[in-house]
């Protein structure tokens, strides 16, 4: 279950200072690091990536004062090491635990039906699409025009048409799609409140 992280303010400030001397930059790095660690927990097949991310930050917070002065290298790699230990512990726990009461269960499933979920997403998608410029909408439409094998040739042609490499096209569509998905998620959150 995701829980509120209980990092004391002084440890939080020390983590920010460790990430970057500029507080604004550090704050942005902190937010991204949270997202990235949550992704690592997904790759590590953990049932509660958000809760595990909180736990990782809690553990770093407890040690940051002692570790920071002597640690060499990018501090995000220290977080990675902590996250990896947590993943290992999690796997061990699942293997050895006998009682389901002791397992950290993921959030209970959303109670809405599949139909309702699809309808909500569709509604939010339409709202978010309105915020995109016609050019961006067209780019997504063209990018997803073909499926399976045909899409490779199609995307090469599309990149040529725009005068960019396929790599650049992929990244451009990725960013666009990410912002669209984030908009949909925010919209869904508002709807469920």
């Amino acid at each position, binding site marked *: 279950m995701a829980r509120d992280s209980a990092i004391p303010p002084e440890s939080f400030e020390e983590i920010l200072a460790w990430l970057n001397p500029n507080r604004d930059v550090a704050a942005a790095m902190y937010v991204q690091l949270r997202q990235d660690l949550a992704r690592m927990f997904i*790759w590590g*097949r953990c049932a509660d990536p958000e809760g595990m991310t909180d736990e990782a930050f809690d553990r770093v917070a407890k040690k940051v004062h002692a570790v920071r002065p002597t640690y060499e290298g990018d501090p995000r*790699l220290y977080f990675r090491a902590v996250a990896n230990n947590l993943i290992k512990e999690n796997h061990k726990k699942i293997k050895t635990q006998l009682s389901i009461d002791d397992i950290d269960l*993921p*959030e209970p499933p*959303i109670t809405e039906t599949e139909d309702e979920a699809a309808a909500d997403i569709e509604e939010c998608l339409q709202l978010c*699409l309105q915020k995109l410029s016609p050019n961006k909408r067209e780019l997504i*439409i063209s990018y*997803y025009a073909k499926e399976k094998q045909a899409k490779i040739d199609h995307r090469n042609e599309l990149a040529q048409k725009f005068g960019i490499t396929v790599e650049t096209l992929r990244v451009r569509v990725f960013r666009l799609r990410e912002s669209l998905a984030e908009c949909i998620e925010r919209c869904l959150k508002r709807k469920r409140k």
Partner: protein
Amino acid sequence: MKEEILTDAVLREFLLGKVNDEDGARIESLFLTDPEAREKVLVIEQELIEDYLEDSLNAEDCEKFLLRYGQTPAQLQQLRISKAIKEWAVRENASLAVPGGTSIFQRLRAGLWMRPVFVVPIAVAVIIVTVFVGDWLNVRMKHAAIQQELAQLNTLASLREVPPQLVSMELRPIAVRSLERVSEFKKSADVQTVELRLPWIQKEHYPTYQAEIRRVSGDESFIIPNLPAKTDSLTTIRLRLPTRILSRGQYQIRLSGIDSGGALGLTEEYAFMVDG
């Protein structure tokens, strides 16, 4: 060094949990500290999700994918969102591809047909086409015969009868691909017809439905129109198929509602495996 490990192929393996610990650690470290590497990993992750939604992953990868991306409600929501965006784009594409424009062939014909230099190549092409047209016609006729047989097998009158050597199987819609395995049908000599029961979970209901069935990785599809729905507590559409037209592999069914004006309505998708 960095480029070596950040290839599409290695990153796909990594995201499916198929790389060794050492490579995994290198990729994770780059993911956390190098913005370019991070974006690359996320692009590949998005493409992996796309492949999953297109049913392009093999069974092993599909299982590994679901263990990572189909476990929690939040992950399922992510998949639903990806699916919705993709489906919207496909719908928009379909509506943009309206008939009536000048086709490539028409433009070519207008530009080339009257020039003498093209007469010989065109004549050669005509001969080649003539040679192949016989085979093509055979294939088309066979296809039309199966199409007709399917239509006959699925009329209201035929569906009221229960022929011998029929087995029935319920498929679940791929609203968002659930964690369940794809239903499997084992072919055997004593089963001649399989009846697929397709629950319709959309809110909209229609007077009739149309099913399009095709084998994944095949390019032939059959359309069965005018399927009636059976409504008890749940609307179900039955689709009967002669087992001899099925071969080993995965099949996909697109079921669409047909409104009273004959226009296609909402669509639901189903999948099943044929073995034996």
